[in-house]
């Protein structure tokens, strides 16, 4: 919606109502322009504790458009500042801002220096996402999380956004769920608020809406071999971004904060702010080199395999020793930034290649970015951003998939091992799977222009126009000479699929500051926002090759085509007013009204209101001295989620029948009254600082209610329609809390110890289904009132009758109906991230814990049914003979599924950063140089009978699929990153 740190409001400069009228007169009369003399502000910013220069600090003239970022030496220059008295503010994430009064001489310069103290409290941070303009967090009643990505990259270098967000904002879940290198992440905020719609938050980069698809899109294209492209996990388009380009990220956690984003924001909003060039600085170069490797944890259930041999005497192989490889990683990045006169620039490029531990699987990606800022005048600025990326993934065959690579090995029967099938593979041999080629090749351009125009003091206008255009080609090739019958492929198959996606964003925001009677400050924001989104999916499929050596679609003897089309348009208007009652009490009232092409034609427009209050108590004499800052806040607001593009349409599907005769059959029943899901969130919390802001606390309790959740009502099949009818009849409630604690335990010039703890708890419940006690959605999942969305239900064992003459293994009796095991998402999450700095060394680690989630552990019984897996093999007798115990186990697991807890503790990151002494770096011609050694996802502890309790075969965005099946654990990665600057 708005981008960048711009300016903060100063009451003294607020216009009176008369000034407001004058400002509004922009549309009717020319603004008077007064030539003024200007001066220059120069200075430095440093860390108060260490004395080190602080780069990337925003220094701004309060109440004007003039600002600058500090360079690597902490220097800044601001030109064109109106002469006279002014205030200059320096602010940086993680530091307490400072404000300095200055007198700017006409035609001359003034020097001012800042020495910022690290702070565990962030109330002075200025945020812009969903706030109707730049505003200090102290004035906000709704929670906004901020991640300083540029700082985080210094201690936890990551190559994708999802990894960056792991454990950084309370209430935000970002977890790898399988799929190998390039696999998507489950990214969601504050649980689940929909039965059917995507769970990902909407993501913007510098005000431009992004493609966030993370699910496989080939499944609906038909005519292909079994099981999606590679088992269900799609490629994550968020991983196209170059994390080194990101300055910081703002996270709106729910409807109360995200109201101004309307019918796309009930899952929250993530806004990414990319880096800008530093004004008035010579080109500053930064180069980074990354090296490392991926290595899977050897916990597959094949350790006993070598004890067995197949009929031809082939000794079975343990895949932990044969399929787990060391996958090399390399990355290179370069960036240059600077500025002259009124313009700045930031140019970057990067390249990385990561080879998975289970091969073939790798990801190669590159980015080029150009950000330009031009301060045309002290009233008018332009920001232009352009990024091109290419992301090539050689996908791992994994997940719910006959061609799963490790799944075939892990489900093979070692007693059937042969030279061609050394793991006793029952479906497709590992060697044949390794001959397959499954790729995704995405080219993407994202860019936009933002114009800021401040025609009069206190009156700003911001227009953002942008686009995100994605072209992705996916290919899957089964060679003719492999045996892929289980995947429904005979004599080879080739699929060439293409996804063309584009979304165009237009955004206008006007802000007027004025003063109401009795000194009540007022900031009125108004504007509009819209997007235009299209997605075209096509596929060409060739089946049955005449022989080996050919691989094009047209070379096949049977060729097919498929196409899918999606189109959505949204236009919304917004208005809000923020009132300030002195410098303590702030309140915002706002509303957003949306129309969306996906709404039923009889629905109309949707309105989303909000109100929030923030009350700052710091400075009151009655507060204990230990409390250095304190803000109480409360907010209530609504946001929505639009239905699928054509869900409201009643449709009759054209198909072919007989020998390819055109035909028409009922498809979707449609719903003319279909509207968006509307979430209303109440959030109350406290933001506080203690002991001179060395201890910071941000905590919220919230309740989110969705009273018109879209329920996929399955009409009786006997009526003929093949899809469900989307109806706004569901009720979902999320009750939760989240908290962040920052503690600067030690802060010395040569040693500091900072601790970050984030926690959240959530209870999700289906509250109503319009009279239904339970329905089955299109995926066959049960939705029941009183239970969480995506609840895990299943048949549980009840009793056992010992063997008889007619029942060799005895008889297990299960429950008559499916019983509830638990929710599919954690009810409690905790992350702990200590950072220790000593001299030139920085030690960082991130540990996470999650509790409360359950899943259908499909792998465990499956292996018994396949007569394999270490747990089964251990029950066999001498020579691999079946025993009563082994047969009984098979019998049992033929009867029941395994339901396990997803409780886990995971050591996500441990890293050591080293500031290379200048004498060494300069000796080889480098500037300031750092080296980071990092290990990620090294170890996890759990109670499940599985490889990784976080795995989910359906990949990201799947809230209803609560099964782990044939997926691979997220890999352990080891990285060394050397970064130097000139």
């Amino acid at each position: 919606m708005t981008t960048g740190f711009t300016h903060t409001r100063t009451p003294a400069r607020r216009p009176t109502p008369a000034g407001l009228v004058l400002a509004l007169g922009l549309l009717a009369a020319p603004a008077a322009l007064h030539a003024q003399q200007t001066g220059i502000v120069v200075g430095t910013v440093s860390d108060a504790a260490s004395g080190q220069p602080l780069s990337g600090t925003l220094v701004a003239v309060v109440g004007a458009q003039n600002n600058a970022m500090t360079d690597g030496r902490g220097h800044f220059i601001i030109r064109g500042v109106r002469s006279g008295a002014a205030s200059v503010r320096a602010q940086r994430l993680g530091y307490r801002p400072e404000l300095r009064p200055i007198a700017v001489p006409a035609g001359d310069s003034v020097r001012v220096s800042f020495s910022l103290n690290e702070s565990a409290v962030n109330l002075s941070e200025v945020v812009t996402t969903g706030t109707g303009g730049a505003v200090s967090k102290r004035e906000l009643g709704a929670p906004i999380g901020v991640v300083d990505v540029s700082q985080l990259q210094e201690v936890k270098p990551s190559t994708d956004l999802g990894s960056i967000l792991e454990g950084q904002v309370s209430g935000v879940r970002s977890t790898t769920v399988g799929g190998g290198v390039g696999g998507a992440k489950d990214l969601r905020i504050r649980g689940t608020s929909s039965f059917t719609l995507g769970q990902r938050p909407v993501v913007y980069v510098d005000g431009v809406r992004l493609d966030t698809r993370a699910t496989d899109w080939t499944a609906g294209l038909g005519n292909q071999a079994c099981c999606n492209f590679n088992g269900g996990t799609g490629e994550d388009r968020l991983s196209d971004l170059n994390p080194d380009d990101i300055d910081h990220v703002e996270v709106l956690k729910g409807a109360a904060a995200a109201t101004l984003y309307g019918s796309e924001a009930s899952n929250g909003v993530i806004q990414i702010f990319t880096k800008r060039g530093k004004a008035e600085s010579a080109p500053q170069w930064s180069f980074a080199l990354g090296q490392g490797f991926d290595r899977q944890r050897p916990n597959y259930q094949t350790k006993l395999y070598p004890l067995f041999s197949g009929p031809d005497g082939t000794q079975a192989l343990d895949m932990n020793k044969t399929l787990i490889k060391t996958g090399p990683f390399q990355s290179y990045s370069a960036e240059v930034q600077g500025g002259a006169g009124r313009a700045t620039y930031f140019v970057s490029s990067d390249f990385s290649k990561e080879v998975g531990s289970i091969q073939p699987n790798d990801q190669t990606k590159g980015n080029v970015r150009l950000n330009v800022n031009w301060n045309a005048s002290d009233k008018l600025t332009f920001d232009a951003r352009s990024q091109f990326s290419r992301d090539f993934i050689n996908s791992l065959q994994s997940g719910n998939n006959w061609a799963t690579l490790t799944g075939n090995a892990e489900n093979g029967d070692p007693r059937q091992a042969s030279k061609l099938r050394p793991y006793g593979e029952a479906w497709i041999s590992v060697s044949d799977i390794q001959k397959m080629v499954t790729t995704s090749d995405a080219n993407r351009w994202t860019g936009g222009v933002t114009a800021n125009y401040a025609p009069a003091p206190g009156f700003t206008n911001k227009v953002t126009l942008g686009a995100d255009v994605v072209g992705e080609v996916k290919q899957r090739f089964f060679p003719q000479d492999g045996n892929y019958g289980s995947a429904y492929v005979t004599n080879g198959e080739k699929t060439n699929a293409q996804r063309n996606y584009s979304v165009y964003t237009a955004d206008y925001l006007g802000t007027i500051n004025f003063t109401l009677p009795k000194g009540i400050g007022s900031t009125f924001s108004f504007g509009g926002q819209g997007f235009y989104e299209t997605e075209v999916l096509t596929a060409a499929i060739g089946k049955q090759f005449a022989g080996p050596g050919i691989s094009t679609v047209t070379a096949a003897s049977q060729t097919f085509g498929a196409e899918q089309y999606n189109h959505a348009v949204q236009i919304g208007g917004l208005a809000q007013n923020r009132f300030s009652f002195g410098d303590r009490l702030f309140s915002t009232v706002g509303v957003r009204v949306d129309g969306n092409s996906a709404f039923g034609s009889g629905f109309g427009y949707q309105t989303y209101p909000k109100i929030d209050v923030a009350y700052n108590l710091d400075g009151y004499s009655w507060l204990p001295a230990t409390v250095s800052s304190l803000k109480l806040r409360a907010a209530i607001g609504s946001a929505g989620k639009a239905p699928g593009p054509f869900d409201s349409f009643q449709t009759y599907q054209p198909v072919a029948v007989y020998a390819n005769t055109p035909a028409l059959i009922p498809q979707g029943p449609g719903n003319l009254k279909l509207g968006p899901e509307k979430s209303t969130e109440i959030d109350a919390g406290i933001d506080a600082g203690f002991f001179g802001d060395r201890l910071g606390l941000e905590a919220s309790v919230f309740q989110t209610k969705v009273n018109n959740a879209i329920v996929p009502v399955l009409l009786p099949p006997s009526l003929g329609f093949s899809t469900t009818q989307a109806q706004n009849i569901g009720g979902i409630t999320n009750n939760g809390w989240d908290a962040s604690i920052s503690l600067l335990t030690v802060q010395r010039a040569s040693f500091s110890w900072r601790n970050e703890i984030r926690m959240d708890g959530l209870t999700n419940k289906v509250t109503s289904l319009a009279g239904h006690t339970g329905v089955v959605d299109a995926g066959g999942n049960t939705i029941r009132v009183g239970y969480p969305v995506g609840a895990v239900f299943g048949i549980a064992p009840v009793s056992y009758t010992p063997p008889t003459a007619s029942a060799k293994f005895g008889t297990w009796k299960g429950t008559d109906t499916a019983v509830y095991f638990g929710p599919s998402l954690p009810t409690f999450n905790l992350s702990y991230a200590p950072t220790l700095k000593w001299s030139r060394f920085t030690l960082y680690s991130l540990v996470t814990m999650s509790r409360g989630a359950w899943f259908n552990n499909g792998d465990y019984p499956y292996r018994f049914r396949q007569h394999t897996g270490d747990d089964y093999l251990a029950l066999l007798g001498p020579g691999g003979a079946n025993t009563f115990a082994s047969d009984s186990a098979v019998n049992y697991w033929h009867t029941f599924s395994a339901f396990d807890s997803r409780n886990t503790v995971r050591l996500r990151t441990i890293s050591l950063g080293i500031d290379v002494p200048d004498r060494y770096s300069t000796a080889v011609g480098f500037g300031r140089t750092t080296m980071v050694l990092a290990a990620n996802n090294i170890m996890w502890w759990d109670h499940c009978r599985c490889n990784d309790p976080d795995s989910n075969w359906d990949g990201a965005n799947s809230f209803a699929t609560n099964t782990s099946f044939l997926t691979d654990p997220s890999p352990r990665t080891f990285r060394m990153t050397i970064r130097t600057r000139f």
Partner: protein
Amino acid sequence: MRQLTNRAARVVCAAGVLLAAAGCHDILTVQNPQAFSNEAANSPVLLPAVAAGAEGDMQVATSTLFTMTGMLSDEFWHTGTWSDWLDVSNGLIRANWPFNGAFSGPEDAMLRARGTAEGASKRFETVLGDSAHTSPLFITSEMARAWADLELAMSVCEVPPTGGAALVTDAVLFKQAADTFAALVPLIQSAHYTAATDRQARANQALAGLARANLMLGNYASAMSYAQQVPAGFVYNAIYSNNSAFQNNQMANQGNSNYNRSFTIRYTSWKTQIDTVNFALTDPYSGMPDMRVQLGHDNNNAHGYARGSDGVSPFFSISKYSAYSSPIALTKSEEMNLIVAEVKWRAGDFAGAVNAMNINRQLPNVALPNLAVPTTGDISTQVRDMLLQERFATLFGEGARMQDLYRFGLVTQRLGTGRATKLPLSRTEQLSNTHVGQGNEKCPGIS
């Protein structure tokens, strides 16, 4: 002057904003180019496609439904990895089955197909008015509806007779199918067919349907009468194609080693008759391979195809359905001969019954020696067993076996106790049909 220019520019901008706002309504209107609306389907151009959809949907639904009824009987068993298929194969499914189960999807598909046909017939009556009943399009949709009823009655113990209605027994549904077929016979004669062969084909389909429905209802004389009106060589196929996944014969997809290997002939029931040299079931009366039940098997285990996808069970390809485009006979003249044979057997005319069966055995593609009328022992039972064996071989993989075991009371003898004798109603229909509701199913019976 400059002020005037600026003002004009602002007026233009303001007008542009207003126009854009006014145009928003159209901006929010999007087209779905991949499906037709209900109104569009009334177009005369699309009505033939509506009729084709009615019949085609029914045919497409057949392959998965026959897989399930085959696995519930002694025809097939599950050799794959899906526990819900295994539940069907083991006969464990019950009334009010607590989750969808493998049988729900195929059953839903046939219920939907009948709903498609029902909706198509209503559309023809609405759009074509008085001329609807003489339209071949209406004949097509009604024929599809009747066959869907018949296949549902053969497979499921109780179903709603029309979309969203309360449940009726399979016997009521057989009656409904018979009534529809009977109503179609005169309509077919008065319908405006351009080709006599089309009229004759539809007439034969209706007669064959009447023969089977009456057989199942116990109206044996009528059944034989209708069966005898069906000419030799007649076949009504469900047609499949490689063209799209929608058109694929799913029995080929799951029962053939060229594809997946998730079901095969029930090994425990037929292992003594499986001829792995000639790749066919051995005819018990002649000792010769019965090519009506061709089976594929990889003796050398070179590709692991000797076992099912479960890695354990012996696997034999159902050669009859070797490709996605392999047709499945919904009915054929051979079935009519067997209906005649059964009616004669029930009347005590054992020689007549055997003669009727031998018509099939003498067909060129069968070429098995004639059966002889038993002369000793329980002749009726022996002829009955011949009939069941002939029905098994002739109608292998055509959705008849489970109903045969059920109606002859042989489930326990062939498969043991504790097994569902027919498919229960799908959980989807149970939960979504307000006339049914959870826990209200009354069948199937258990052996």
